[in-house]
């Protein structure tokens, strides 16, 4: 099977304001199959967000080539939906307008139907009573959920999410995780999911990529062969523990706090 | 009706009365001419507008026309002399004890930034044996001259006797009286404001030009015979101009129109000798070669006959 997304020996070196340069990624090489859900874990500053920006076409790698279905990525693609690490909402638009913004920005206008869809997505992220608020009247976690709803609006084939649940509490996080799995399963999405939670990565992903500290390289690529559909009982399976241990061994102290992940 | 656009060389006032009189008395209508008046901002402005066809005919200082023609062959000719004496003058307050041009030595003189008076000042000094280096000349916005004079900021200002009534009115309010020292009494003797017309207007509508000048001549005569009525003619068309100020102005500049020159050569006519003198003074003051330009080329006598 032809890979849907491929990173071919990617290197990324940033030019700094002081004239120096810094290598963020070095020789990153992996592929994602169609409809695969790939999670990326790695220490802070290892280049995960850079990876996201490369796949989204917002950044062109200084070395190697990112390809989507064989075509090199040189600019943002239509079929990609992105959740940024920062919520990145437009402060002058209401929450609902922010969620339907991708449509307005792509097509020029939104129909009442689009707004209904926006409302539905906001309901899915638990913000149905905040439609007409302005972003600065929302809490951090609420803003993040608006960002997630917005990324789902266009039903993109490829979803790229940068720590989408980082500002959410346990319950919301869990609900949103399974909601995401359901959406990805139903709509057959290909997903790159960046997270700091090892167990979240194992629970949601078909494959987990583990990255080394700066300059970021891939240190492991772990297919997660847990039964699908996943649900809360998945975490009780012995395989689950094995997977999380394997990842933890890469990036953590031997006896790291398991739940702090 | 023939349309003629008339270009003033400045804002409306008693000194521009003839054109308004001609309109109010129906002199232009008699000649089948309808007048449209355009306000100007100085002779140069008027000349530019006439030369580019925005106006057909208008007022300008003859000196300004000579300079413009010498510098830049503007297609304009003077056709009728309105003021055969120049209006330049020193104004001073009566208690300053300056009673002749020669007495300005050692005094402070304020003058407008851009007035043709300035170019004749050195000439005036040399004719009257005033040591130029002993005179302190400062330049300021024309609107500030009278306040400077009345507040004692300066001893003397240079202005035109066309403006004397405005100065007097303000001086009276400050409890001072004005002394006027015209330069034509101090040896400067030449033509000033004239009716000028674009050469195109003259060539394309010679008949209209002739009729216009005829009517204008009639208006000039009427104006200085009936200052009061002429003042109200101006006021009727330009409400901002007060009747008595305009009438007083007309009276006060009587000598610019009716003087020895006009007595000898007639109203409106240009005398070749005086024209040559006017150019000689101008060329000298401007540092131009006298032979570089023939002043006869600036006037056209074909359109006016009494």
């Amino acid at each position, binding site marked *: 099977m032809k890979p849907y997304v491929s990173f071919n020996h990617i290197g990324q070196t940033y030019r700094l304001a002081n004239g120096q340069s810094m290598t963020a990624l070095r020789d990153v090489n992996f592929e994602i199959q169609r409809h695969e859900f790939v999670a990326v874990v790695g220490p802070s500053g290892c280049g995960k967000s850079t990876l996201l920006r490369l796949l989204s076409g917002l950044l062109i790698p200084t070395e190697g080539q990112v390809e989507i279905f064989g075509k090199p990525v040189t600019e943002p693609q239509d079929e990609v939906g992105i959740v940024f690490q920062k919520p990145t909402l437009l402060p002058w638009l209401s929450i609902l307008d922010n969620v339907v913004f991708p449509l307005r920005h792509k097509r*020029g206008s939104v129909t009442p139907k689009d707004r209904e869809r926006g409302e539905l997505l906001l309901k899915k992220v638990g913000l149905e009573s905040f439609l007409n608020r302005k972003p600065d009247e929302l809490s951090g976690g609420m803003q993040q959920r608006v960002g997630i709803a917005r990324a789902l609006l266009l039903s993109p084939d490829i979803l790229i999410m940068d720590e989408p649940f980082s500002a959410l509490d346990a319950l919301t996080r869990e609900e949103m995780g399974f909601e995401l799995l359901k959406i990805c399963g139903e709509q057959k999405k290909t997903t790159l999911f960046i997270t700091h939670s090892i167990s979240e990565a194992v629970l949601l992903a078909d494959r987990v990529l583990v990255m080394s500290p700066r300059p970021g390289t891939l240190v492991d690529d772990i297919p997660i062969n847990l039964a699908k559909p996943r649900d809360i009982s998945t975490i009780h399976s012995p395989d689950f523990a094995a997977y999380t241990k394997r990842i933890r061994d890469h990036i953590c102290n031997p006896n790291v706090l398991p739940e702090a992940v | 009706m023939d349309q003629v656009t008339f270009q003033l060389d400045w804002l409306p006032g008693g000194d521009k009365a003839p054109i308004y009189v001609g309109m109010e008395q129906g002199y232009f209508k008699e000649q089948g001419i309808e007048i449209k008046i355009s306000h100007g901002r100085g002779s140069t402005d008027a000349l*530019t507008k006439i030369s580019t066809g925005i106006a057909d005919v208008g007022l300008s200082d003859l000196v300004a026309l000579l300079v413009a023609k010498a510098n830049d062959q503007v297609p304009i000719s003077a056709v009728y002399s309105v003021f055969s004496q120049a209006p330049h003058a020193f104004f001073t307050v009566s208690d300053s004890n300056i009673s002749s041009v020669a007495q300005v030595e050692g005094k402070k003189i304020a003058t407008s930034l851009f007035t043709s008076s300035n170019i004749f000042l050195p000439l005036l000094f040399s004719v009257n044996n005033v040591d130029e280096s002993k005179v302190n000349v400062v330049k300021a916005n024309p609107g500030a001259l009278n306040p400077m004079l009345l507040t004692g900021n300066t001893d003397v200002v240079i202005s035109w006797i066309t403006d004397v009534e405005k100065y007097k009115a303000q001086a009276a309010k400050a409890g001072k009286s004005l002394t006027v020292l015209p330069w034509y009494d101090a040896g400067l003797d030449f033509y000033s404001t004239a009716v000028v017309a674009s050469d195109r207007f003259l060539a394309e509508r010679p008949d209209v030009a002739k009729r216009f000048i005829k009517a204008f001549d009639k208006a000039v005569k009427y104006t200085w015979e009936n200052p009061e009525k002429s003042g109200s003619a101006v006021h009727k068309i330009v409400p901002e101009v007060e009747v008595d100020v305009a009438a007083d102005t007309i009276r006060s500049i009587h000598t610019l129109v009716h003087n020895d020159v006009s007595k000898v050569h007639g109203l409106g006519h240009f005398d070749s000798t005086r024209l040559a003198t006017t150019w000689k003074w101008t060329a000298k003051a401007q540092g131009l070669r006298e032979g570089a330009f023939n002043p006869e080329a600036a006037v056209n006598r074909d359109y006016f006959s009494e």
Partner: protein
Amino acid sequence: MKLTETVSVRAQFQKFLPLLTLLSIFPLWELGCALLSVPDFVLPKPSVIWTAFVDVETQRWLIHLWATLRVALLGFLLSIVISIPLAIVMVRSAFLTKTLFPVLVVVQSTPVVAIAPLIIVIMGTGEAPRLVITCLITFFPLVVSTTTGMMSTPPELLELSRSLRGGAIREIWQIRLPFAVPHIFSGLKVGITLAIIGAVIAEFVAAEEGLGYFVQFSTSYFKIPQAFAALFFLSIVSLVLFKCVTWIQTLCFPWSLPKDEKR
């Protein structure tokens, strides 16, 4: 009950305090002029200005006012219509910025009074040259502040736009321009006062009516109190138009106001 009434009276007072402070200038001015016996042809007393004001027929005032207002407003609109697209074009293209900006600087720093004859020759003696002069005087701050506003759009918002492939036009229209609204209005505030100055200066150069013409006319007749009355009228017009601009901002773009002002 009593308390809230007191509070409300005090709030009202607070609201009008600036106005009261401003109005207190007039008695001070009157008194100062009288004490220092400043002559009326230098700085007329407010009472004298008032007399000069009522001496002129209301209808004449209205004619002059309307002439100036028309040119100022039309010139202002014209300069908005010109400068916002210019700013947009310059935000998009570094080449055009480098080519156009020097031209704009030159145009802006050329004293219009000096090129007035040229403008009049090209545009005739009607209202057109005055519109052009007003526009020339007004446009530059608008271009600069709109450009600066659009250029300071946070990069993450621009990245959002790029990721959605909305295209250049929508990036401008839906992201950069809304973000720049506070700065555009700061330009508009400067612009509206310049538009009035522009209309007045245009009347100094070529006009037969208008408040600027009237000031010039009065000054040339040394009717200083009358000139001040016209200047005063002009100030009122400026204040009202300025207020209109801030009012439009409050009404149409409340989110663009600083947080403190919203309350």
